[in-house]
């Protein structure tokens, strides 16, 4: 079936009043970015729908790219025809044949934007319905809940036919909700948190703490590979490496064991907040889930969160591990996340971190550190890179070894 355009229906955007235009232009941009290698496709973000003029591009490939883009409720491949009923008949039959499976039912729904067209909606419905019945053996008409609904729209510029409604990713266009810093450890939860934040329109930048030689280059690569997985929804993500060795060593030196974790987390939060400030972010996103580990109790949150008034979004806060794992499978990050590399959260993990730390104690132990100096030195040595779809270690290795293999 040769489709000429794809019609995209907006999700919740349609209800967003005045901001609608912003949402639509953001979504249009995101769709453009996802289709950057289809120069012939023309994208028109209009008030009620978005139209993709394919101009010969493969409709299936284009549709695949639309699948992960947030802010799309559903989309339909459409054929645009001249206002000639013979061509419409022929295409309607072809279209039904291409999707029909044994035992399915159908109906024709016609809309006329142009009421001067010689046939009215009933005429068209009956004419096309009869043609389909005649030419598709075994098909039946069913008006209430048909399996296949052929939509015919008569407009001035032509007649438009479609019969599929492919569900989109839902959510809001990434970037329409501002920017946030994602604390990406390399575990199962943080990539899921990032994905959920993006789903609600937030653009994320990944912040990853690493402490060489305590953490391995593989752990860093793993975080980058996870980020590459998340780019499926946006095209590219900024990845910020924070050198954390000195801070961890210093904390280990002066803070009693029970409070190592709490103070470490406070420092991470401070650094993330500082990076947020420099990059014009509005919030911090992390993968904290209540009660999962010692740092993720309400008491710990109180003691850690105290360093900043920035909103902290915790998309998986109330999920069970199994629910998080389900999403990780869906977004294809689970396999990577469970690779067993030490990260900076496990490296200096005391055998018994306080699950109910007291804020005053954390503050007094922290006072033994040169907080400002440590933060400043870490900020001076940030390593920032842009990660694009397909920028994985696998891809890098493939090109490294291409000559040998």
């Amino acid at each position: 079936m040769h489709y000429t355009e794809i019609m995209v229906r907006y999700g919740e955007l349609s209800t967003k009043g005045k901001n609608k235009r912003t949402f639509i232009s953001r979504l249009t941009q995101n769709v453009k970015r996802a289709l950057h290698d289809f120069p012939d496709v023309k994208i028109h973000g209009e008030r009620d729908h978005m139209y993709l003029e394919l101009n010969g591009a493969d409709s299936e490939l284009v549709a695949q790219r639309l699948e992960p883009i947030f802010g799309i409720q559903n989309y339909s491949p459409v054929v645009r025809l001249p206002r000639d009923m013979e061509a419409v008949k022929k295409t309607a039959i072809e279209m039904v044949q291409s999707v029909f499976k044994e035992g399915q039912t159908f109906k024709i729904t016609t809309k006329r934007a142009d009421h001067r067209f010689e046939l009215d909606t009933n005429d068209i419905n009956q004419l096309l319905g009869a043609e389909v019945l005649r030419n598709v053996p075994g098909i039946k008409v069913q008006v209430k809940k048909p399996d296949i609904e052929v939509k015919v729209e008569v407009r001035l510029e032509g007649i438009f036919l479609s019969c599929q409604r492919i569900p989109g990713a839902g959510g809001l266009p990434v970037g329409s909700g501002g920017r946030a810093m994602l604390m990406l450890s390399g575990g199962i939860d943080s990539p899921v948190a990032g994905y959920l934040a993006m789903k609600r329109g937030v653009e994320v930048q990944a912040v990853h703490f690493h402490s060489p030689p305590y953490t391995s280059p593989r752990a860093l690569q793993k975080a980058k590979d996870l980020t590459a997985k998340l780019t499926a929804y946006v095209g590219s993500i900024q990845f910020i490496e924070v050198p954390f060795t000195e801070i961890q060593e210093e904390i280990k030196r002066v803070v009693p064991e029970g409070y190592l974790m709490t103070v470490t987390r406070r420092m991470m939060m401070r650094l993330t907040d500082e990076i947020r400030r420099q990059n014009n972010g509005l919030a911090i996103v992390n993968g904290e889930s209540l009660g999962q580990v010692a740092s993720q109790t309400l008491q710990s949150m109180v003691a850690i969160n105290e360093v900043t008034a920035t909103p902290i979004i915790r998309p998986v806060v109330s999920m069970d591990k199994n629910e998080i794992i389900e999403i990780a499978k869906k977004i294809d990050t689970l396999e990577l996340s469970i690779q067993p590399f030490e990260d900076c959260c496990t490296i200096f993990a005391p055998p018994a971190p306080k699950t109910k730390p007291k804020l005053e104690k954390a503050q007094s132990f922290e006072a033994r550190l040169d907080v400002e100096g440590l933060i400043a030195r870490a900020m001076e040595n940030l390593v920032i890179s842009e990660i694009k779809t397909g920028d994985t270690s696998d891809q890098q290795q493939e090109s490294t070894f291409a000559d040998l293999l």
Partner: protein
Amino acid sequence: MIYFDNSATTQMESTVLATYLKVAEEVYGNPSSLHGLGDTAEGLLQQSRKQIAKFLGVQDNEIFFTSGGTEGDNWALKGTALEKSKYGKHLITTTIEHPAIKETMAQLAGNGFEVTYLPVDKDGIVSLTALKEALRPDTILVSIMAVNNEVGSIQPLKEIGMLLEKYPSIHFHVDAVQAIGKIPLDLSVTSRIDLATFSGHKFHGPRGTGFMYIKHGKKIAPLLNGGGQEKGRRSGTENVAGIAAMSRAVRLLLTDVEIKQQQQRQIRDYLMEALSHYSKVTIFSTMTGAPHILCFALRGIRGEVLVHGMEKEGIYLSTTSACSSRSGVSSSTLAAMHVPDSIATSAVRISLTDTNTLAEAEVFLGAFAKLYTQFRDIH
């Protein structure tokens, strides 16, 4: 020199050898090591695996590296026997398998397993009826080669697969050592094949390399236990240089594979046609067999006599299979095809690869004509 013994082994392709040398010299880390050298070796190992999987149309996690065909066959059989003996102890194979299967089956038969050997017809093709009758509730494995190494007969794997659809718990193993690059081999998700054995040196890769296809979710016990390499299913420090070189050899083999098969078939058909005009020649291979194997006998002249006669002319072929060449027994495949011993002892095999040419076939035929006359005068 004309090398017509490619089913015995092949010459390593020059860039494959270059890869082997470069990797052995530079990527010498142990893939299990944590440092960067280990990472590089591990990366190369995974890319090699990925490339092989891609060319075979399977998933990366379905490819396991081995030391070759013999190990693969042993692993498939013993691994299945160990894994599934609690469900049954009945194994099915054919009368024309490579010794790596046959001898392993004999060993299992001596250890409480029961083996059914399926007969073949005069063209060396296994009987589906016999297979149907042999299947039992306690059957745990069917092992059938894809292409016979002595006469080149192609077994009806698709039909066998269809027959086994009704028995999903039986492991279906295919010895594909002589098939890869020679006939289409379907290992996709929809194929019924669970296990397949491959050997690197049969397609211009290094000796001592091979791999096994194990369908995702199918279990066989490890043959080699130890450090847990290959996801714990085949321990032993990985032969990274050999594996990378073999992966390259797979890519070279399966690029433009149809054209190469066509070339070999053309040479084989040409030889077959020419040899069929000699009254004292009996041809065992058929036109519908694998494109690279031609097995025939010059009646009254022992196979090795013809082999040595040809060697004097700078042409290398073999008595039916290299593995039985030295042991002096006449071919078991021909015996299974009911070829009388008196003729089977005269059998020789020509086996081709993509570098052989029609011109070489011409030279061979000239030499053969000369020897034919010479032998006739003696007899």
